[in-house]
């Protein structure tokens, strides 16, 4: 086997690893930004990625970038919330004979809440609250920490009894 073919084989064999690495780094996650990111409206749904040392949230044309190194606090939590959105709320109100109340019991879903605190170039304090499907909060948190986000000693929060919502 020639040297060039060995080189080509080694490159080809490392491609899946490279692809996996980029998939982890650039994982686009569908999250909801409750508030706190510049130029992003409240409760905006969008894609979250972590690339080039920056956390990026894109909701349509609006894009917010936060340098990972400027993040100095990541607080994770979980909550039981009502799914179904506006349509769900309207249906609950419209259903007769207390049907809406029964529907409230059925339309529950657990979500992860990630609260990030960071300082901008002027030293101003910012806080952003993101919600995502259950289980993804820990993944995002781990990636931010791996990317250089500073986490206070008090983190991670001790396991709490399940929050009622």
């Amino acid at each position, binding site marked *: 086997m020639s040297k060039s073919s060995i080189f080509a084989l080694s490159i080809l064999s490392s491609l899946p690893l490279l692809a996996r690495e980029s998939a982890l780094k650039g994982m686009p996650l569908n999250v909801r930004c409750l*508030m706190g990111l510049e130029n992003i409206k409240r409760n905006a749904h969008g894609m979250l990625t972590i690339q080039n040392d920056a956390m990026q949230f894109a909701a349509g044309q609006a894009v917010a970038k936060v340098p990972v190194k400027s993040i100095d606090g990541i607080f994770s939590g979980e909550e039981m919330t009502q799914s179904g959105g506006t349509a769900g709320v309207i249906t609950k109100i419209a259903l007769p004979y207390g049907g*809406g109340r029964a529907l409230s019991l059925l339309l529950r879903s657990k979500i992860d809440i990630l609260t990030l605190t960071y300082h901008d170039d002027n030293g101003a304090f910012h806080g952003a609250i993101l919600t995502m499907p259950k289980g993804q909060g820990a993944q995002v948190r781990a990636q931010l920490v791996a990317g250089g986000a500073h986490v206070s000693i008090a983190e991670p929060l001790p396991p709490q009894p399940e929050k009622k919502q």
Partner: protein
Amino acid sequence: MIRRSLLAVCALWLVSPVHAQDKSAAPKLSASAIRIEQVEAGDVVIPMEFRVAIYESLLDRVRQLGKFKQVFRSGDRQAEGVPDLVTLKTKIERFEEGSQTKREVTTVTGATKVDVSATVVAGDGRVLLEQNLTGKVRFFGENLGATHDLAKRIAKLLREKF
């Protein structure tokens, strides 16, 4: 006849200069810039998302008010040297986390409440304004809705006093 005269007296009292003077008696505070400090929790156990939500909601509400030319975030170095700057400090006094499902099912239980003391301090440290306020969500809406309600009340207070 008596009713008519009573109404006329009431109307006269409302438009009288004495009454008008009473309304405008309290002098309004003035400041061109405000800095909103981070929410202090003290000994109260409150999830971080609530503290951040109060802070960010306050920033939005105070900007919408239009009473101040500049609204600075906590720690913003641009605020240093601004002559006419006041600082809004918020401290959590009590927090009661409810349940959205309970609220929607029972309508009478599961309210989320957050009590704070809001203080406005002048550049020289004088306390210009201090008041306790409560934010709550009673029926529909997520628990964080209590923070929006609270920010609305604090903004209303600032609108009345400035």
